[in-house]
């Protein structure tokens, strides 16, 4: 694992930026700052939606920053943000491997590498020479590629290798990788991280986006932490990195945990029992029990199986394992029968699956609710009465049952979904996915009150959320999903403890192997850290 210096011809480049980016009225980045020292591996970390991808896309010229505000300095030279595009960035030596790849699938690796700059002899494209160079370069840096393989036939890891090699072939001396390990198997991750260290020791500057703290610890010299579009911490700069401090900075500490309901007595019957639930490729062997009157949180960075967990419980994706609602085994039942058994499901995305946007609020509140509408003929008076009741219950605005759902604000749309689902008769189990995502603070407290109300009146409530503050405010127990598996659980006294947030943050990001209810040493480092270049 000794780094050997192979190529020092290209001087290492530094990059320094302070940029903002608005999409419509919403700030994706608000004066986010990053300072990258030459020849280092710099990790950019943050929760989903923190603005990591946007920032690196601006650096690489893929996305243009807000004009008139912000600065970008490459190798000591300020650049004009208004004209900074991919072409300019490439000329300045900045290569990027984007999160979802940017290769044309039907072209070969070498064709993708020369796309737009095809070497030609007369009218003919000449690929042989480039292919040889790609192969040699790949072998030299430990990322072997087959130049003539069709990109779409390659496994994701190999396609990503090809993009990295192509970027280096084009002379990139700053290489940006956006969540490169998301598509890789663990052993590939180790290999990639070693390669990145070696490239840095050869004088390349690497920026890697990730939210996995074990990787940060393994590979990075410096760290920039983004939260809600702003830089909240920078670490490293010669000092050793402290994983726990990074986790704290990522999840934030601004809101104290709220006061949840009294936990249910140990004798309370279980209302939702999930046993060994598995969705191929997304969820592995997840078991969790929610008792009457209990609020259980599922924490985790987005994309670690949360979506599939909710869908599998609701019967909306194929899964194996057992699901029990109240006393009834519903693992083989249709979604409709699960709802009839006492399940309420608040889907993750109100715009796709939660609401019929072109229908009225009243229609949405009674959507397939035969207990409201009647079996065959719609009882319109009952639909109206139901709407008025639900609108009052959650303070839905405008208080107009004939308003079209599309015209409501996001918070009020979410209230409609929550109101419909939690008003189901003989409610036993509630699965609420991201119940307050993109919702204003007023609506958050209404929705939280309603979820507590459901627990108080005897249901078991499972809250799946990427927002740790929400879970800490609501839940009696929090389990953590990472890569489709439950990796830990924090409950009881430990949840009220001062370092609960940090502990859960570490579990969410793979910073430590989770252990139920115990505190975690902050310096637990993965064993595979390669040697650092001096």
């Amino acid at each position, binding site marked *: 694992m000794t780094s050997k210096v192979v190529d020092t011809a290209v001087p290492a480049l530094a990059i320094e930026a302070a940029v903002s980016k608005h999409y419509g009225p919403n700030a994706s980045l608000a004066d986010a700052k990053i300072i990258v020292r030459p020849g280092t591996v710099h990790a950019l970390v943050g929760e989903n939606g923190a603005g990591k991808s946007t920032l690196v896309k601006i650096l690489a010229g893929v996305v243009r920053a807000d004009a008139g505000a912000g600065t970008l300095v490459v190798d000591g030279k300020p650049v004009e943000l208004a004209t900074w595009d991919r072409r300019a960035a490439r000329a300045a030596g900045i290569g990027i491997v984007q999160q979802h790849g940017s290769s044309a699938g039907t072209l070969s690796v070498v064709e993708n590498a020369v796309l737009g700059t095809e070497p030609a002899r007369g009218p003919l494209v000449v690929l042989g020479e480039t292919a040889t160079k790609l192969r040699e370069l790949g072998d030299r840096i430990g990322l072997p590629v087959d130049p003539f393989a069709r990109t779409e036939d390659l496994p994701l890891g190999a396609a990503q290798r090809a993009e990295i090699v192509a970027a280096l072939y084009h002379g990139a001396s700053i290489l940006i990788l956006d969540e490169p390990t998301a598509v890789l198997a663990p052993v590939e991750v180790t290999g990639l991280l070693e390669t990145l260290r070696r490239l840095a020791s050869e004088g390349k500057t690497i920026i890697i986006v990730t939210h996995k703290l074990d990787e940060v610890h393994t590979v990075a010299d410096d760290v920039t932490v983004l939260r809600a579009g702003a830089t909240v911490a920078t670490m490293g700069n010669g000092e050793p990195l402290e994983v726990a401090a990074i986790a704290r900075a990522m999840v934030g500490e601004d809101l104290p945990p709220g006061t949840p309901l009294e936990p249910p007595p140990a004798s309370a019957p279980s209302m939702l029992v999930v046993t060994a639930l598995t969705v191929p490729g997304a969820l592995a062997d997840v078991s969790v029990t929610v008792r009457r009157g209990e609020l259980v949180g599922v924490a985790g960075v987005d994309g670690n199986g949360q979506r599939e967990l909710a869908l599998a419980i609701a019967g909306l994706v194929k899964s194996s394992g057992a699901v029990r609602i109240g006393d009834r085994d519903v693992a083989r039942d*249709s979604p*409709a029968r699960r709802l009839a058994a006492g399940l309420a499901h608040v889907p993750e995305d109100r715009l*796709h699956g939660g609401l*019929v946007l072109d229908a009225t609020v009243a229609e949405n509140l009674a959507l*397939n609710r035969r207990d409201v509408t009647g079996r*065959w003929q719609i009882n319109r008076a009952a639909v109206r009465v139901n709407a008025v009741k639900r609108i009052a219950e959650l303070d839905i605005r405008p208080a107009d049952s004939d308003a079209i759902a599309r*015209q409501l604000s996001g918070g009020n749309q979410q209230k409609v979904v929550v109101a419909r689902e939690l008003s189901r008769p003989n409610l036993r189990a509630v699965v609420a996915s991201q119940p307050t995502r993109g919702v204003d603070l007023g609506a958050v407290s209404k929705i939280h009150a309603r979820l507590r109300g459901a627990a108080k009146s005897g249901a078991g409530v499972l809250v799946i959320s990427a927002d740790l503050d929400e879970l800490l405010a609501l839940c009696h127990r929090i389990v953590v999903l990472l890569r489709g598996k439950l990796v830990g659980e924090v409950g009881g006294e430990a949840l009220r403890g001062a370092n609960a947030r940090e502990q859960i943050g570490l579990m969410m990001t793979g910073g430590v192997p989770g252990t139920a209810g115990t505190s975690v040493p902050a310096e637990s480092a993965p064993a595979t850290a390669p040697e650092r270049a001096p």
Partner: protein
Amino acid sequence: MTSNTRREVQAAMIALLVSVAIGSLLALGVGVSPGKMWWEMLERTASDPYLFGQVLYKATGLALCGLAVALALDAGLFNIGAEGQITAGVLVCATVGAALPDATPAILAIPLCLAAAAAGGGAVGGLIGVLRAKRGAHEVITSIMLNAIIAGVALWVGNAVLFRGGTTRGDAIVAGAELPELGLGGSSANTSLVLAALAVIALAWVRSRTTWGHAWRAVGRDPAAARSVGISVARVQTLVMTASGALAGLAAANFVMGHKHAFEEGLGRNTGFLGISVALLGRSHPFGVAIAALVIGFLSQGGLAVGDFVPKELTEMLQGVVVLAVAGASVWIKRQPEPGR
């Protein structure tokens, strides 16, 4: 719902005005006075009972077929197979009607033949629905294929079994299965018009006042939302396509039971395709479909009425212009800023 309804009506009105404008330009292009063309079309159709009856006859088939397409659209399915479903309805209806004993009373023969027409079309529609729901085969592709297959099958069955004595006409249905004509100047308009009107009212009611209607409209507007509240999207798609095919098949009541009283090669041809225009112009609402059926019926018959000074091709183009205008108006409506938000 009121603001939605207003927008739908707006879209249809804009489409009509644009069609009239383009039709006028076309008329100018061939040297016909637009004012005279439109006036004569209206005047002649309104004053001549025969022409008026023909408009009603055409509108009857178009309305049933338009309802079929509109029902499917309402559930998010594009049934362009109404053409084949009509043919299937005509074939089965005429075969059953001809096979009944001569003395079968109307009270038995009419329901039987209507059921046969609906079953013929419904079977075809149901097949398309099952393929979509269970196999994910796109209904547009399967219905195009089935249109071609059914046209071939109908001709083959006709030639092999039904056609009599070198004609392209099969045996007549029994007298009891005939629907009386309305007696409008010897036109083909018949009492199946009442059937079409009842179908319009029934569909409007089911659509807005029953859990079924709400379920299929939820599937049409957002299948994911429908699924998450426990509606079986596959079942809705299958049933809606079956019902849609049955409605198209019922158009056989107009062509076979009300007019020709036998299976004839090409009977009802093109109604299925015009029915798509009717559904689009009617913005998928049953009442809209009824009005659109009259408009398209009028354009197609009115064209013939002024055939002495307006080229036939021009009035045929008008029907296409209407469809284009409807598509354009839909885009226009979508671009309108939403109130609130």
